[in-house]
């Protein structure tokens, strides 16, 4: 193989690797959309989840967890989610009549024509058992509410699913897996793309 062939092969490999990496990066919701303000308020309704034994049904844990997105603020709220109306609200105690069956948690988002998110609320299927970072008895075949809500709030701010294994926005999770609590570089890149 002569020098020119080697060079051509090397360039081709670089192109292939680049394309593969770009094809496996974060994905934004389509159409691309963001909240009007640079900071997104995502309060957590104080009606917690009865399966979480950390004293307040996961509310405090989730308030802390979703701030992993540094464009997100959060606090407990006594105001339940109102659909079609901000703020985006996390409901740990109801499926919202949409997240049933095999759904663990769901984000219901709304927008008018344009690129601005008007509302987004998160609902939890109370049929399943969850645990939080503040729970003393650890995990036993439960789902990590902190990580699940960090993932859902990624949808709230406009991010879809990533193809990068290990990213919080990667579409798979197993029980007792708390890895989604921490954002990976791919998740952060998506956020920075939007805000």
């Amino acid at each position, binding site marked *: 193989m002569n020098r020119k062939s080697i060079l051509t092969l090397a360039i081709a490999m670089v192109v292939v690797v680049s394309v593969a990496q770009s094809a496996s990066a974060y994905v934004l919701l389509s159409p691309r959309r963001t909240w009007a303000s640079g900071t997104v308020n995502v309060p957590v309704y104080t009606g917690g989840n009865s399966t979480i034994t950390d004293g307040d049904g996961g509310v405090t844990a989730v308030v802390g967890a979703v701030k992993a997105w540094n464009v997100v603020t959060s606090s407990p709220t006594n105001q339940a989610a109102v659909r079609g109306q901000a703020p985006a609200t996390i409901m740990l105690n109801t499926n919202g009549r949409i997240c049933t069956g*095999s*759904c663990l948690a769901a984000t*219901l988002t709304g927008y008018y024509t344009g690129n601005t998110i008007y509302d987004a609320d998160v609902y939890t299927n109370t049929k399943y058992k969850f645990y939080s970072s503040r729970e003393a008895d650890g995990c036993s075949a439960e789902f990590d509410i902190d990580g699940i809500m960090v993932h859902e709030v990624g949808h709230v701010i406009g991010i879809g699913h990533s193809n990068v294994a290990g990213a919080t926005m990667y*579409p798979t999770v*197993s029980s007792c897996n708390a890895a989604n609590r921490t954002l990976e570089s791919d998740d952060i890149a998506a956020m920075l793309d939007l805000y």
Partner: protein
Amino acid sequence: MHRRVFTIIGLLVILALPLSASQFVNVPFDQIATESRYIVRAQIGETWSAWDDAHEVIYTYATIRVNRYFGDATGPDTLMIREVGGTVDGYTQEAIGFPVIRAGQDVVLMLSTWEDSSDFRIHAFNQGKFLVNRRGNREVLTADPERQGEARLATREGGRVQTTASDDEAGISIEEFAQMVNDARAGRAAGSGLGRTQQQ
């Protein structure tokens, strides 16, 4: 025997595709097949969207023309299904990752009723929806890659829906699928062990 193994492997590949969704539990095929009220091959007809009575959720409705019922349960030639999400008066509501229903799609659907009504919905979200694709003279089923919030995966060409469920994607034949359904509903555990991982 080999064909059977390949069928199961094919379904494994289909079900192992990442579920672009909010967060779902991946349900074994047998469970979906046995829990479904009807399993149909159908053409999706007219679709329309409307708010619910409480003006909280936009639902998209669709009439589907049934060409075939799988398994032991049969019903009428036309059914109506309802899924969360849609657009009304310029306002779009999407449940990120939930199934998308588009007029004109040739599909196999596993259907159950909503918990609070007798309306039908796709059971287990996109795990209960397959696109019918033609490969030469053979029809195969592939998982629908399109989800709400991820409309980039679908385009329309001449009124016909084209998706990324392309020829290079794994699929199984309709008759293989029918056999899987029959086995599952007969309690023969056709696809036991499929999809044990939890997916979101």
